[in-house]
């Protein structure tokens, strides 16, 4: 039996008496996390207000704002079509290779934007092999599209970011009770109508969450937009900052980027609406997939393969090509002996970051579910801001926040203050990662929480279970899919992450992404190809683990 679309603004059945004391501690935890996570961002804002004498905004600010909006809308639409469409395809239909494609489709996530952007340009621009071949075949006058443009950037970013929407949408479709859809069908709705009227509205919170992530990634991207000559407000931050050799002058631009972030989050809330959708009976069974036969089936396979080829296989092949050339030219020096250490560093930080972010997200979602009221809910929402702030700005924010703390402690008489806590260890990196990557973790976990019936929480608590027990025995098992997605998203993001590590790393701490950057920064692309491939491979591992779990769950559910 499914409880369709319970519409209400808040949980009015909160168990006020049941666990008032336990709840307070959990609410406090959320507030604490919010303070911790917003501190570096606030530090940047305050620094900008205190230190810069004059307003330093780029001359072409208005065009930057317009460009940013266009890019975000374009990539949002692109990822919605590609990610949402593919998610629907793989859950609603059976076609050749579907079981493999289901998880392969997440692979573009493993490709860092700074690699994809360059590979795309060098492959498709005027002097690249594709247009070169076209010229050889059709002569010099052959039509050559301007790859380095806004549409080019929209295309590339949509192809690399669609997995966010895909993952969220698929999870939403899979977790849906089949009964809802079946009820609509038995009441005479066509397959398409049931899809539009029942499935899409039910998947809306997840789609909104995925879209918000995509938009925030788009907003903070610096590498791809720079390759494509697209001047967004984030590029503006760097232009003012690097142009004047002084970060303070760029603080106001950073505040503008923050305003965009607020807009994205407000938009997400709006998309979710005041509706809260819950389904009874734990995790749903999902849809029954319809078999597609003949050419239709192969067309579906083709669509998936096309998206995969563009966002993953073609760039990987290009990298392999470069790496192979490099290996043949210099087999002895191909793999740097220190590379293993770099990889261990990357994986170590990524693991720590993923575990940390997911634990905090779980605690926050749980606290909100226990019913902390408006303040707690807003505080939890606030913690997702970091994702919409460029990594380098967060890095500076962490430095500033700790510099102040250090001085304050010294003034209070603590000898040495905080010492070199931030840049003397990986603590600074991990803290910055928490600030930056809490959003994907929280979005994924919270989206799963949204589908847990409040009555589940209520019954558990009325049966006398304390908040911690409710978390471990009731909530955690129900939101496991969300937790898995969260772990994977953070781990992949953390492996790929560059500016924070570059800025905050202690001596002797190099990750694979820093290594790639060192080489790529000087255009040693052939040399950078192998470590770039390793990043991709390292990011593929969590994706694979996730889908093994998902498939096991599918099998248990008899799909």
């Amino acid at each position, binding site marked *: 039996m499914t409880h369709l679309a319970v519409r209400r603004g808040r949980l009015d059945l909160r168990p006020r008496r049941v666990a008032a004391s336990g709840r307070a501690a959990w609410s406090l935890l959320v507030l604490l996390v919010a303070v911790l996570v917003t501190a570096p961002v606030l530090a940047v804002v305050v620094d900008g207000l205190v230190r810069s004498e004059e307003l*330093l905004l*780029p*001359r*072409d600010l208005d065009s930057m704002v317009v460009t940013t909006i266009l890019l975000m809308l374009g990539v949002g639409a692109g990822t919605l079509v590609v990610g949402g469409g593919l998610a629907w395809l793989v859950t609603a239909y059976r076609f050749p290779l579907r079981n493999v494609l289901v998880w392969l489709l997440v692979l573009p996530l493993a490709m860092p934007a700074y690699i994809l952007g360059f590979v795309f*340009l060098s492959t498709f*621009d*005027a*002097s690249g092999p594709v247009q*070169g071949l076209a010229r050889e075949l059709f002569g010099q006058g052959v039509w050559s599209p301007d790859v*380095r443009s806004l549409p080019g950037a929209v295309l590339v970013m949509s192809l690399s970011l669609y997995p966010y929407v895909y993952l969220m949408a698929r999870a939403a479709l899979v977790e849906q009770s089949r009964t809802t859809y079946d009820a609509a069908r038995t009441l005479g709705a066509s397959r398409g109508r049931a899809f539009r009227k029942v499935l899409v509205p039910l998947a809306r919170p997840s789609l909104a969450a995925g879209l918000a992530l995509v938009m925030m990634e788009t907003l903070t991207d610096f590498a791809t937009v*720079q*390759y*494509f*000559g697209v*001047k967004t407000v984030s*590029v503006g931050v760097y*232009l*003012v*900052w*690097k*142009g*004047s*050799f*002084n*970060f303070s*002058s760029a603080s106001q631009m950073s505040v503008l980027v923050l305003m965009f972030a607020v807009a994205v989050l407000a938009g997400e809330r709006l998309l979710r609406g005041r509706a809260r959708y819950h389904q009874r009976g734990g995790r749903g069974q999902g849809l029954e997939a319809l078999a597609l036969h003949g050419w239709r089936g192969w067309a579906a396979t083709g669509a998936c393969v096309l998206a995969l080829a563009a966002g993953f296989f073609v760039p990987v092949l290009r990298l392999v090509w470069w790496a192979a050339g490099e290996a043949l030219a210099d087999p002895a020096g191909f793999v740097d002996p220190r590379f293993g250490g770099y990889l261990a*560093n990357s*994986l*170590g*930080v990524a*693991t*720590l970051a993923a*575990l940390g972010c997911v634990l905090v997200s779980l605690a926050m979602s749980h606290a909100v579910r226990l019913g902390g009221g408006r303040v707690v809910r807003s505080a939890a929402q606030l913690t997702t801001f970091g994702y919409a702030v460029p990594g*380098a700005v967060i890095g*500076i924010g962490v*430095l*500033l926040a*700790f*510099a102040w703390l*250090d001085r304050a402690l010294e003034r209070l008489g603590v000898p*040495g*203050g905080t*010492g*070199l806590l931030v*840049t*003397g*260890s990986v*603590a600074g990196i991990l803290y910055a990662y928490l600030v930056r990557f809490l959003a994907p973790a929280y979005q994924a976990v919270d989206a799963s929480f949204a589908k847990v019936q409040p009555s589940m929480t209520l019954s558990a608590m009325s049966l006398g279970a304390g908040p911690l027990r409710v978390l471990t025995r009731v909530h955690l098992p129900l939101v496991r899919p969300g937790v898995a997605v969260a772990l994977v998203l953070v781990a992949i993001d953390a492996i790929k992450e560059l500016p924070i590590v*570059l*800025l*905050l*790393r*202690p*001596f*002797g*701490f190099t990750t694979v992404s*820093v290594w790639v950057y*060192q080489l790529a920064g*000087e*255009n040693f692309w052939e040399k950078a190809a192998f470590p770039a491939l390793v990043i991709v491979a390292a990011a593929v591992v969590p994706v694979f683990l996730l889908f093994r779990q998902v498939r096991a769950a599918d099998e248990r559910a008899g799909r």
Partner: protein
Amino acid sequence: MTRPARLAALGAALSLSTLVSGCGFLGIGGEEPGDIQVYSARHYDLEDAFVEFEEETGLSVDFIYGDDTELLERLKAEGDETPADLFVTVDAGNLSNAADQGELAPVDSEALRGAIPEAYRDSQDRWFGLALRARTVAYNPDNVDPAELDTEDTYAGLTDPTWRGRLCMRDSTEAYTQSLIASLIDLHGREATLEIVEGWLANEVEIMSNDILLLEALDAGTCDVALVNHYYYARELEEKPDMNVELFWASQDGAGTHVNISGAGVVRSSDAPAKAQRLLEWLATDGQEAFVGGNHEYPVNPDVAPDDVVAQFGEFEAMPLDAEAYGSLNAEAVDLLAEAGYE
């Protein structure tokens, strides 16, 4: 194994690896720090230079590579507690700025004054140039007769309508572009420089995001003339000796070719300033070849010869370098590029 048991095992393995790597990260059981710690926005074979230095002097060097302006912010935030002894960075404006923000200490060294021409070090001895790079014209000889290029002001000469549809240049976010424009502002004033940039745009200059792409475009014949850093050309030439691209020294009958430096200064709150100075002096003398060689840059020390690839480009006249102007005019250069609509 049952499912929960497998999960538990996975969890245990994860926590163990986390613990081990965590201890490593947090510096527990880590290595002793080196004698000299360097923040560097340069990395080309810097490591080889430091190894060589250690072999000669017995002093070990640790370095962190990062983005120039970001390392400066880190230095500022760490304040007195910074582990850094030497700050190595690219771009004269950046060096002059680090000095102005009080992050570099003056070094009174006869060896440095003797090794580095006055033009390439700070008048107050806070920073010292170590390597020189030129940004000049490269062209495809099939499509360009070098006699067509203006020898007095080659950069401004590219505004001539004969170059319409034939130019390729770097984007405005690139420091190379900004520093070139800053030097042109210093040379011609803002108005005239704006006209030059507008002239390039009127010639439908194609903007690319990478110097190697510029050279490849020249080689492929999709561009005729481009502005590139000389060492990218040297590197491409070394890899592809049959590359169909030639280098042209800009403005030789005028102000000279635009150059910029990489350089270093001793950090104000260094706890080993004497050792840092020793490293700096070595880099300006015996270590010059190691410092510039890997990247085909010109040594600032006139007693040291450039490497073979670069030597075949011949001598050229460099535009006078005014680090303070590069530093103070860079923001204006960014603004000018935006005003002209140069992406």
